């Protein structure tokens, strides 16, 4: 329990990850599914960012002279977060485009209804 409080960023991140994951899995509304995906990925970035941050140290940007390496925070998690953001932006764009296409065909964003309509048309 104590560990959860000390690592409160990580705890929050894991809870958010769970919320996002379940939304992506269980929501019927496709747009809410995408939002769930966004929450899930952001939770991972929060986790990474909190890992890289070290209390009382500088951002790893050179200003004037090079200080000792121990004066800076860990820049690798930030790099990973940036890469991750690029990935999730493209995935989100792709999902939204696909949802738009489905909406044009079926006039709804409810996935159960879409599946049912597709089955009725019998064009599976």
């Amino acid at each position, binding site marked *: 329990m104590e560990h959860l409080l000390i690592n409160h960023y990580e705890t929050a991140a894991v809870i958010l990850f769970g919320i996002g994951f379940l939304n*992506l899995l269980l929501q019927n509304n496709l747009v809410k599914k995408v939002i769930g995906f966004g929450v899930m990925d952001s939770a991972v970035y929060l986790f990474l960012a909190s890992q890289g941050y070290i209390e009382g140290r500088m951002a790893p940007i050179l200003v004037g002279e090079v200080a000792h390496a121990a004066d800076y925070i860990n820049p690798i998690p930030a790099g990973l977060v940036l890469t991750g953001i690029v990935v999730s932006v493209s995935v989100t764009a*792709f*999902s939204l485009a696909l*949802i738009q*296409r*489905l909406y044009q*065909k079926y006039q709804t964003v409810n996935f159960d209804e879409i599946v049912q309509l*597709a089955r009725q048309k019998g064009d*599976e």
Partner: protein
Amino acid sequence: MPFVYNFPFFSIFICMISGIVTPLLKNGRWAYRLSLFASGAGLVLSSILLGTIGPSGQSYSFMMGHFPAPWGNELSVGPLEAVLAVAICLVMLMALLGGRKDIFDDILPEKQKLYFIMMNEILAALLALTYTNDIFTAYVFIEISTIAACAIVMAKDQSATLVATMRYLIMSLLGSGLVLIGIVLLYCITGHLLFPNLQQRVLELVATGQYTMPLTVVVGLIVLGLGIKSAMFPFHLWLPPAHGSATTASSSVLSGLVVKGYIILMIRLFYKVFTIEVIRELRITNMIFLFGLAGMIVGSVGAIKEGHIKRMLAYSSVAQLGYVFMGIGLGTDIGVMAACFQILVHASTKPMLFGCASALSASRHHNKQLHALRGAAYENKLAGVGFTVGALSMIGIPLFAGFAAKVFFASATMAQPVKMWMTLLTLALSTVLNALYYIPAVTVLWSRPVDGETGEKQPKDPAFAVSTVVFIAAVFFLGICYQPVVELIQTGLSLL
């Protein structure tokens, strides 16, 4: 450093650049030629690489941009990676050739160029997943292949493919989310991203007994995530609609290659990061083993109930992937060797089956219901022969590739009494079930049509002929002269 050592990087780079250049080309025909060139170039480069490092059993790490570990990004190359890369490029090339007619029929002319971007990116991602030595690079390429794979399913713009793509996309995103959090947790407990450094730290953690619980969770999350993406048993329901409704070349590439990319990564992580002994101790292999067995049965039962020929083949993929997971689940070198061999067998058989099924249904107004295909083999004899060879190989008739794979699985279990009888029993049952749907399908194709049901004659398609002949040759090669391939896989696994 010999010049040949650059070839893995070149093959990935050529595919990525082709993908980027494709939108500038005039039309789909040129984009198609460029894709053929990219996969052909990949095939030639990988073959030369295999010829150089295969016989002598060398392996090496390739520094990207001359930054040494632990800062730089690396590729790691050995005989196993080279064999898989040759297979991936060959299957991609043949799938493009075999599916040519359908690509240009199914996809809108203005979208054709975009389709080939996706094909190039998929090839680049698969090669990168095979070669990479960095876990975060692996994640990025997992996502690239996810988006590209979804895009090639939805390229055939029909309602069925859109719904199937949505389902595929959701499952894939759940899977990659789990892989991502697994990788992040692993980074937190080890502080590294490159495979060799990770392995060192993981072994230290295991030796000191630190972080055992997080390590188990990490392995579980990564296996679960990659399992969802490669249709491991309880998560296989997205596969049949996606693979069954896409255009021919997409179905071939998805079943033959894309699902395997994640399994290849899983095997490499097991050997190069966690080591197979640790995985065995954490008992993750037992779970994979049981899921594999269940998948073998469930996939076949699904295929028996299916009347749509392409969805039937897709269910059969679920069963065949079950074999691969069963082999990994044995948790021994010889089991994983059998799994790698099965990957090659399935990659050379299933694309041929998809190609032939589409060619057969072409003379029946693209009706893919099995009862509509009565006697279709007489209208396209080569496709009929190809389908028959593929079906016999999947059932596991001697001299065909599937038989060799089954023999390896059976002999791999001999050392483990409990797993042995489970495996042998399921193998026997699954062979019977495979026969129960492949034999009727072949019989229908070759029975004389009831009068009035003959379809129109299709024009000759030399590209399809080349691809089918090459696939048939590959099936017989893996079924008869498997020894050199197996030796390469074994050396490769010992060097991982």
